[in-house]
C-alpha cells in the first residue's frame, strides 16, 4: 500500500506506484474509470469557441448533449451553440444522415444572424452507423454556400486507438484557413488556447520586427482567417499535432513545434530553432535563465521541505516540472497522471533512476473514488487535480501550461508557487468550474 496522503488509508499499487516500479507509458491497468469533480481543463466546446463569430452545432443523443450544451451555457455562450437531438428511432429507421442534415440547416436558418462558420460535431453513433459524412457536408454546403461548415467530431470511443476529439478539433479548426500571401515578419502561433505570458521572447521579436499572431487574441473571424498570412507557423502544445504540420503543408509554409517545457536545454534549443527558421541570430538567454533560477531558489527558501504534488492537467510536461523542482531541492512527492506522454519518456527514466520513491498516482482508477484526501501536513499542489486529491487550499490554479513559456515561464511559475504557498484558495469553489479562464456561471 502506498501512502500518498499524509495520513489514513493508503492506496494499492494498482492505483499508486513509486516511479521506480512504474511502467512506461501506462503505469496502471485499464479499469473502470472515476471522474473527479475537477473541471478546469478545457473541453471541445471551450476550444471551439476560440474561433470568433463561429457557431457550434452538436448532433447526438440527449445524454451526450447535456455536457456540451451546458458547457456553452455555463460560459455564457448559449447564443453560439445549437444542437440536434438523435433519438433511438432514428437509428432504427436508418434516418440519422437526414436528421443530421435537416437539423443543422434548421438551426442555422433560425439563428438571428448567419455565422460565417459553423463547427459541426457528429458523434460515435455516426461512426458506428457508417454515416456518409462526405454526403452530409456536401448537402450542407449546397444548401448554405454562405456558411463555412467545419467537420469536427465528438467521438471519444475512438480516442484509445486514435486521435482524441481535442486533437481532431484542433486539426479541424485549421480547415477554414485558406491560402493567402505570406507576410514577411508574421508568425502565427496555432493550436493553443491561452495567450503566452510575457517572456524573454517578446523583446527579441520586437527588436527583429516579428509580429506574433495567435487565436486567443483574435476578436473577429477575419482576424482568425488572417492567421494564414504567416510566413511561419508555430505550435507549442502537444494536441496541436497532427493538425498544425498538416496545415503548414497544405499552405506550403514552414512549421515548428516548440513545446512548452521546463528544460533549460530545450528552451535554448527552441529559441535557436525559431531564430534559424526566421533567418535571425539567436538571442542570448543567459540573463533570463539566471533570473529564472534565482526565482526558483527564492521560492525554495520560502517553501522549504513542504510536500509538493503535481497533476497532469496543470502542464503538458508534468514530469519535466517534477524533474526541475526535484533537481532544485524541492520536495516533490507525487504525480497524478494515468499515462506518460511520449515526449516525456526520457524524463520518466531519469526520474525512475534518480528519484525512485516519487509516487505516480492514478486520477481515474476506481480506487481513487475513496482515496483518503486528508493530509496532516501542509501540501502545495500544482494543478487542480493535485489540489483536490490533497484536499489543500494551497495550490497553483493553472491548466494546460497557462501560457508559461521560456525561462520567464520558470520565473513566473516560481512566483505562482510562492503566492500559492502563502495564500490559501477556496479549492471547493474553484476546481469545479469548467474551463479555467472562461466565463463561468458557477
Amino acid at each position, binding site marked *: 500500500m502506498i501512502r500518498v496522503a499524509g495520513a489514513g488509508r493508503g492506496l494499492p499499487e494498482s492505483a499508486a506506484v513509486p516511479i521506480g516500479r512504474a511502467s512506461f507509458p501506462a503505469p496502471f491497468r*485499464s*479499469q*473502470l*474509470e*472515476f*471522474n473527479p*469533480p475537477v*473541471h478546469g481543463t478545457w473541453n471541445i466546446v471551450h476550444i471551439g469557441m476560440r474561433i470568433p463569430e463561429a457557431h457550434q452545432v452538436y448532433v*447526438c*443523443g*440527449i*445524454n*451526450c*448533449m*447535456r*455536457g456540451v*450544451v*451546458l458547457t456553452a*451555457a*455555463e460560459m455564457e455562450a*448559449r*447564443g453560439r451553440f*445549437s*444542437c*440536434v*437531438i*438523435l*433519438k*433511438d428511432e432514428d*437509428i432504427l429507421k436508418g434516418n440519422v444522415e437526414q*436528421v443530421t442534415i*435537416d*437539423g*443543422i440547416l*434548421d*438551426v442555422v436558418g*433560425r*439563428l438571428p444572424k448567419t455565422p460565417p462558420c459553423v463547427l459541426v460535431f457528429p*458523434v*460515435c*453513433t455516426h*461512426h*458506428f*452507423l457508417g454515416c456518409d459524412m462526405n454526403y452530409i457536408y456536401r448537402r450542407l454546403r449546397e444548401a448554405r454556400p454562405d456558411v463555412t461548415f467545419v467537420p469536427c467530431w465528438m467521438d*471519444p*470511443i*475512438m*480516442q*484509445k*486507438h*486514435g486521435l482524441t476529439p481535442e486533437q481532431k478539433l484542433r486539426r479541424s479548426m485549421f480547415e477554414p484557413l485558406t491560402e493567402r500571401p505570406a507576410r514577411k515578419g508574421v508568425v502565427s502561433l496555432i493550436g493553443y488556447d491561452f495567450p503566452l505570458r510575457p517572456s524573454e521572447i517578446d523583446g527579441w521579436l520586437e527588436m527583429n520586427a516579428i509580429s506574433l499572431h495567435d487565436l486567443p487574441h483574435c476578436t473577429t473571424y477575419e482576424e482568425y482567417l488572417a492567421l494564414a498570412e504567416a510566413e511561419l507557423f508555430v505550435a507549442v502544445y502537444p494536441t496541436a499535432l497532427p493538425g498544425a504540420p498538416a496545415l503548414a503543408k497544405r499552405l506550403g509554409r514552414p512549421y515548428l513545434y516548440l513545446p512548452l517545457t521546463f528544460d533549460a536545454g530545450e528552451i535554448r534549443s527552441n529559441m535557436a530553432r525559431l531564430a534559424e527558421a526566421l533567418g535571425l541570430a539567436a538571442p542570448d538567454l543567459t540573463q533570463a535563465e539566471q533570473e529564472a533560477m534565482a526565482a526558483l531558489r527564492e521560492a525554495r527558501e520560502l517553501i522549504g521541505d513542504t510536500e509538493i504534488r503535481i497533476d497532469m492537467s496543470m502542464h503538458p510536461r508534468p514530469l519535466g516540472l517534477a524533474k526541475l523542482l526535484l533537481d532544485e531541492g524541492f520536495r516533490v512527492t507525487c504525480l497524478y497522471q494515468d499515462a506518460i506522454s511520449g515526449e516525456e519518456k526520457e524524463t520518466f527514466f531519469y526520474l525512475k533512476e534518480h528519484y525512485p520513491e516519487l509516487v505516480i498516482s492514478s486520477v481515474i482508477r*476506481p*480506487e481513487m*473514488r*475513496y482515496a483518503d484526501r486528508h493530509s496532516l501536513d501542509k501540501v502545495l499542489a500544482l494543478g487542480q487535480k493535485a489540489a483536490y486529491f490533497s484536499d489543500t487550499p494551497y495550490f497553483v490554479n493553472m491548466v494546460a501550461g497557462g501560457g508559461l513559456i521560456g525561462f520567464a515561464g520558470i520565473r513566473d511559475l516560481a512566483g505562482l508557487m510562492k503566492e500559492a504557498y502563502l495564500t490559501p484558495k477556496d479549492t*471547493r469553489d474553484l476546481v*469545479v468550474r*469548467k474551463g479555467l479562464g472562461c466565463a463561468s*456561471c*458557477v
Partner: protein
Amino acid sequence: MDRSYRILPTYTGDVSGAASALYELGGMVVIHDPSGCNSTYNTHDETRWYDRESLIFITGLAARDAVLGNDDKLIKDVCDTAGYYRPAFIALVSSPIPYLNGTDFPALARIIERRSGIRTFFVATNGMHDYVRGAGNALLKIAENFVEKPVEPSRGPESSAGPAANCRLKVNILGLTPLDFAVEGAVDRLQAILAQHGFDVLTRWAMGSTLDELRRSAEADVDLVVSAAGLQTAHFLEKTFGIPFVAGLPVGGFTEPLMEALAEAAGSGGNTLPCRDFRKAPAPSLTHACVIGEAVAAGSYAAAMELATGKAFRVITSLEDSAELLGPEDLFVSGEEAVEDALKEMELVAGDDFYEAVCPAGCDFISLPHLAFSGRNAVRDLKTMDPYDIEKLLAGRHLLP
C-alpha cells in the same frame, strides 16, 4: 423540426437520471460508455459529487472492444472493482453504442452477479431518453429487487383492517433526486410538512434513506409521488403490495387538498393524481398562463397558482413518461419549436429561467429554477428559493387580470 434546438438546452439524460436515483443507496453504478457520461453527470447534474462519495464509474469503452464484442473486459473490470468495494448492488447502465450493437445487459448482469455474489441488474437506458425515464427505471429496479414483503401488512390484499384509526399514517416519498429537488433542505421540508399533517415518512426514494430502509417500504400506508420519476415505482408498490399512491407536491394552498387526498387514499386504497385533477378553473385552453417543467411539480404549482389567483394555468412538459400526469388541457411538447409554439400566446409563464429565451415579448415570467434543465446555471437561484412557498414565488408579479 422537433430535433433541433437553437437556444434551449436539453434536459438531463436517462443515464444521469439513473445514477442520480441510485446515488445514496450504497451500490455501484457502472455506465458502459467510452467517456463523457460520468463527467457530464457529475459536472452538471450531480450536486453531491464533491462532498459525498458514491461508486459511479464508466467502463471507458473503446471502439475495438465495441466492434469485437469484448464483454469479458467489462465483466472482469466490474467484478474486480466490486471485489474491492463490496457494494450493496451493481447497476449496469447503457449508452448509445452498446445500445446500437445490441449488448445483452441482462445476460451480463447475470454473469456478474454469479461471479461477484452481488445482486446485479440492468437499468434500461441508452442515452437517448430523459432523466425521468432513467431515474424512474432505476427506482423501479430497486423496488423490484429489494422491497420486502412486510411481516404484518398494514394494508393491501392481506390486510383485513387497513391502517389503525389512531395511528399516524406511514408514507413513502417517491421520486426524489436532486435533479428535481436541488434546493438545500427541500426534502427535509417536505418531510416536515407531511409530519405536520399527521404522516410519518417511512422512506425517501432516494434522498436521505438507506437501502435497508427502502426494503421496508411495503409497510407504508400510502405513497406520495413527488416527481414523474417516482411513478413507475408507485405502480409497482401498488400492484405488488397494495399501497395506494397520490401524486403532487405540497405547494402553497395546494398543500391542504393534497394532504387530504393522501389521507383519503390511505383509507380507501384508491390512487389519485391531484397534481393533474385538482385544478378547477374552467377552460385552461382559453387562458394565457402556464407552468412548464416536470409534470408533478408543474401540476402542483399550477394548482397552487390557480388557488392564489383564481385563474387557470396549463401544464406544459417535454419530459417522457408523464402522460398519466397530464390533464386533457395540458400539453406534452417535443422540441424547441413546439415549445415556442405552445408559449406564443402566453402572457404569464412559470418555469426554468432558460425558457425565458423562447417566451413571447412582454410575457411575464415566474422563475422556477430546475437543475435538470439549466444545470448549474440554476444553482445560485436554487440556494435562495423556497419551493413550497407560492406567495414568495408570486411576490411582486403582475398577474392576470
